[in-house]
Structures are given as structure tokens and as C-alpha cells.
């Protein structure tokens, strides 16, 4: 259906995972988490799309069998997911700020006092 969207979403997720796995700076890890979330959101939206469908907003009585509209559930799921992504980013950034105050660095190879 929406091949470009799906390929784009997969690329975003892979790039996000690459950032979290490879980059040593904690800020870049947080950005990577965000990119993974955005990729998933694009996937959710693309799934609901129907070619030629209208927006799913109706007054009562306007709907008849045969009305062709885009699936509304993925849109609701996407809104939820966007909010969750924003909260995760906020929490991660606040933890990074406090880590910087405590450790003096945000290089992940130096923040490893809990190991072994």
C-alpha cells in the first residue's frame, strides 16, 4: 500500500537503534530513542491509510454503509504513542542533566560505576 512510508519507517528505526548502540554521548542516545519512537509512529499512521478515503469525522446520521474513510483507530494509537515518546524524552533528559551534575561527564564509557 504505502511502500515508501514503510521503507522510511524501517530506516528510521534502524537508524535510531544504531544511534543508541554506537554513540557514546548520552544526549545522542536520547535522540536515538526519540528517532525509534518517530519511526514507529509513522508505521502506525501508514497502516491506517486507505487510498481515496476521507477523514473519519462525522456528525451523527451522516454515516451510511458504503462511506469510505481512513481507519481512525491507528490515529488514536499514534496520539498516545507521541505523548509517551514526549514523556520518555523528558524523563531521559532530566536524568542526563543530573548525571552530568554528579559525574561531570556524559560519555557513556565513563559512566560505569555499576559493573561486573
Amino acid at each position: 500500500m504505502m511502500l515508501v512510508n514503510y521503507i522510511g519507517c524501517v530506516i528510521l528505526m534502524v537508524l535510531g537503534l544504531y544511534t543508541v548502540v554506537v554513540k557514546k554521548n548520552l544526549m545522542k542516545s536520547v535522540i536515538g530513542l526519540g528517532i525509534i519512537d518517530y519511526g514507529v509512529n509513522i508505521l502506525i499512521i501508514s497502516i491506517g491509510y486507505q487510498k481515496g478515503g476521507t477523514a473519519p469525522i462525522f456528525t451523527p446520521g451522516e454515516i451510511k454503509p458504503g462511506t469510505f474513510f481512513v481507519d481512525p483507530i491507528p490515529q488514536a494509537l499514534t496520539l498516545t504513542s507521541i505523548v509517551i515518546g514526549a514523556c520518555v524524552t523528558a524523563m531521559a533528559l532530566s536524568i542526563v542533566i543530573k548525571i552530568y551534575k554528579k559525574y561531570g561527564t556524559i560519555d557513556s564509557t565513563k559512566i560505569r560505576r555499576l559493573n561486573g
Partner: protein
Amino acid sequence: MMQHFPVLAVMTLFLASFLVVLFGSRNKVARGVIAMTASTVPLVLMICLIKPVMIDGQIISYWMGNWEPVSGWAIGIGYEIDALSLFFGLIVALTIFLSCFYSLKYMSRDDTLEKYYVLFLMLSGAVLGLVLTGDLFNMFIMIEILTFAAVALTAFRNNLDGPLEAAFKYLVIGSIGSSFTLTGVILLYEQLHTLNMAQIGALLQKTGMNPTTAFAFGLLLTGFSIKAFIVPVHPVAADAYTAAPTSASMAMASMVNKTGVYGIIRLLYIIFMTMGLSSVQNLIVTIGTITMFLGVTMALNQHDFKRLLAFHSISQIGYVITAIGLGTALGLSGGLYHAMNHTLFKGMLFLCAGAVLYAAGTTNLDKLGGLAKKMPQTCIIFLIGAFSISGLPPFNGFVSKWLIYQATYEKAAESGNFGFAIVTVIEVVVSVLTLASFIKVSQSVFFGELPPELENVREVPLSMRIPMWIMAVLCIITGVLPGQAYTALIQPAVNAVLSPVKYIDAMMGSGYAEQFISAADAAPDKSVVLAGYWQPINWLILFVVLLAAFTIVALLGKNSRGARSHSDEVTDGKYATFYSGEKSEYSMVGGSDMFWGLKYNLRHYFGFIGEMHSGVVNDYALWAVLIAAVYLVFSFVCLL
């Protein structure tokens, strides 16, 4: 009326978390009252539900907002309580109650406590909601809430450096897991256009496995594995359980990794119903075996009490996963029994660690010692917990481990697969290594010599001891009366897992399942016999014998005419141990000095795994991607 209990339980916790910060910011009593009430209500409601769900076999289905299914399609969010959900719900509700009770006194030395209770009640509400819900996206939302609350609880004591680091790693790995879960849910929605687990289970049998659903299977399995903290995503659990305040650690170790186990059971048995395939069984059993072995060997390396307990928690979850992966009724009963026992004894051990931390101020094994005389009740509770986790009779760990050994070896005999016999051997060896590890801890913390800094240690207050005693009594009861516990709790849960048809029918209206599931539902194997290994009459005889023996020893022991203490006669207190006539320094053998023979022989292995747990968050993320890759390759190769 019974219909509303599950939702009431979850909503009470969420509402109370809101009220705590409203009324409890300045008033300590209000905070305690709100938190305790909110923790007791779910426990009471779950216990009320035991009779209809477990004993009578009803399945409660509840549609939020009364949005019943329309012409065979589920359009609302549904809560479905069958025996498996209620089993986990009981465990969770008990943990919430005990943890809240313990935290009233334990956390009294920290400040900003209303924030602690907000987070704790949110965590509890999320876990309870996760095990009671019947909707897949609702499960994902609960996973997100619980990750948040757990991360914030881990970082609670942010004046120390350990919690912040642990919280960041937990957030990164947990977030990766949630993203995978969400992708899996969305892919299933795309194929089947429904989010209700019962309906997904039915429709999947009709559409069969195409590449999209196999991909979704792999992703969902990864997400739940990250939640259950099995190898290789386990280092996060070790860090988080160490850094969190102990009452939160206990809640996490007892409840949160059970959500991963619950998710895996639902996924494999109800939604996808792939447990009959031997490839899936082999995969789950392999992962479980590696988890149990790696957990216990890492635990032998540790210097910190709570970190050691965390690694043991990982190892015991490995046992549960192995037992569940066998796919037989006996394996399932062993796994579920062990999950219940794990909550009880691991919760108790964490509470003991918290008591030691509260009283002595440190959890470093090299610095503690000789606390048995100062904290006798904690010592006895710790020994009960240590013997339960090692599986010694007559405590509860023995029953569940015995069921698991039997299940594994029987599976080996039935399927002719030699690998399962090796799994049995590894299980017993891991059990003995667990015993070794706890002997090390008891010698390092409770027995041995008291270091001079710990002279003023006293027993912890009563309100902290009560939850520990409750759990100890439950451990002993489930060990001595395994038959009753089995028929009351485990058997209905096992039957519920093995009969997905009833699950689907209860949610979507009866007769729905036949339209989709062509094969007849195989009746679950009910012939699980506990082989009467410990019949009460023998227990009585044994007790009489024991009593007679004790009396003999006590009578003979009193022969010491005029027993008096010699310690005040000795001029120098340092001669407490006679050490070849030389003046002795503080000479405690414990902590890292123990088990040299074992550590020396396996030094390459221990060095290797110690190096691998490097503490860098990128490595842990790499392993999460690795396990995702393994699952995805497996589902494409073996399931299509």
C-alpha cells in the same frame, strides 16, 4: 457485582496515587493512610474473586464503558479475568500490600515521600492492570506506565550516583523493548484489525502464519523478554534492583519481572498457540537454561548484597521460563508454582537486605559480619529464605523445583531428546550453586565476627518485621501443604492456560471460537500427581521424633554445671578467637574470601563474564538488538 472488582482494584491504585500527592504533601499520617488503604483494597478484591474464578471456573469478562462486541468484532477495551490472570493478580496484590507496609517505616528516613508513594502506587496499578487486561494495546500502555514508574523509583535516591546511572540504563533498554512491543502490536492490528487478545487468538488460527504475523511474533517475544529480564538483557535488572530503595526493589523483583513471564505465557499459549511446535519449545528452554546458569554464576562474583539477590532473581526467572517452555501440563504447573514461590522468598530476601541496610548502613559483604546476635529475627527469616531458594525440604522451593526436574526429565524421556536430560542436570547444579551463594552471604552478613563499627546495630522495628514474618509463614505453608496449594491455585491456572477456547468464548460470546479453530481443543492433561511425597502423617511422625531428639539434647546440654560467660575474665578483648597464641586482629572469613577452590578452577569463565558486564549502556543496547535478531531469525526460519 463481581464484574466490577478487577477494574475497581486497578482504579483504586491510580486514584490513590493522585490523592496521595493532593493530601499527603505535608501530612504524614494522611499519606500513610491513603497508601495503605489503596494497597489493601486490591488484595481484598482479589481474594474475593478466588471463589468464582478459581474454584467454580467462571471467567469474568468486562467491557469498559459497556462497549460490547458488535457482530463479532470487539470494539471496546476488555478486561478478562481467567484463572491465570487471577493467579498473577493475587501474587501482585500480595506484593503491593507487603511492600507498602514495609515502606512505611523503611522510607521514613528519606524525604519527599509523597513522590515515592505516587510512583509506587502508579507502578502497582500498572502491574495489576497488565495482568488483568484482555486488550493488547492496553497491555502496552500498562508496560509504558510501569517502565516510567520503575525508572523514577530507581532514581529516587538521586543524591547517590548509582541510582542515576541505573535509571538511565533501565530507561534506554526498557524504551527499546516498548518500541518493539508497540511495533508488534501494530503489525498484528494491521493483519487482523482488532486489538482484543481473545479475538486475535481466534482470527490467527484462520489466517495462519504469514511473514507479517511471524515478524510480529518475534517482536512481541522480544518486548516481553526485555520486561522479564532474561539473558542477555539482564544486566539492567541487576543495576536497577541494587539502586532502588529496598521496598521498591522488592516490588520490582516480585512483580515486575512476572509481567514479562505473564506476557510470554499469553503470547505463546493463547494468542499464537505455537507452544506445540518443538522448535519453539527448544528455543524457550535454551534461553531459560542459559539465563539460570549465567545468573547464578554471576552471583558468585558479587560483593554487594542486593546485587547478588538481583542476579539470583534473574536465575530463578530462568527456571520459570524453562519450565514454561516445556509445553506440558507438569512443566506449566512447576513454572507457575515456582513463580509464586519466587515472589514469596525473593521478596522476603530483599526485605532482609533492606533491614540490614536500615540497621547497619551498608550492603557491602566485605564490611558486614556477625549480625546474627544483634538481629536474631532477621537472621532466622533470612535462613528460611535462603533454604527456600536453594530448594531444601520442607520449604516451598523444594516442591516447585522438584516439579520442574520431573517435568524436564519426563519431557526428555518422552521426546527422546538428550538435550532435556542435560537441562535437568544443569538445573540441579544451579540449585547447588544457589545454595553455595547463600551460604556465602549468611556467613558474610550474619555469622562470623562483628566488625567494631557495627557494635550499635539493633533489630529493625516491628512494622518492618511483620511483612517478613508473613512471607516466611507463607513460605512454610506452601512447602508443607503443597497438595492444597496446588489444587486451589495452580491447577485452575494451568487448566486456564491450556484451554484457549474457553478464554475466547468468554470474551466474544460462546460459539465464536468454533468458527475459527478447526482442530478440537485437546483436553489438558489433568493427571498431574504430586506423588504424595510429603503426606501429613509422616510429617507428624517426623515432628514427634524431632521433639524427642531436641529434648534429649536439651537435657544433656544442661549438664554444664554453673554455666558462666568467660568473656569478662579475659584481659584483652582481642583474644576473642584463640589464634595460635598470637594476638589476633579482626579475623573474619567471609565475603570475597569464600569458595576459593571453585573460583580458582573456573577463573577464566568468571573473569570473562565479569568483563562482559561492562556497565556501558551501549553494550546493553547491543545485546537487546542481538536477542531481537535471534528471535526474528528464528520466527522467520521456523514458523513460516
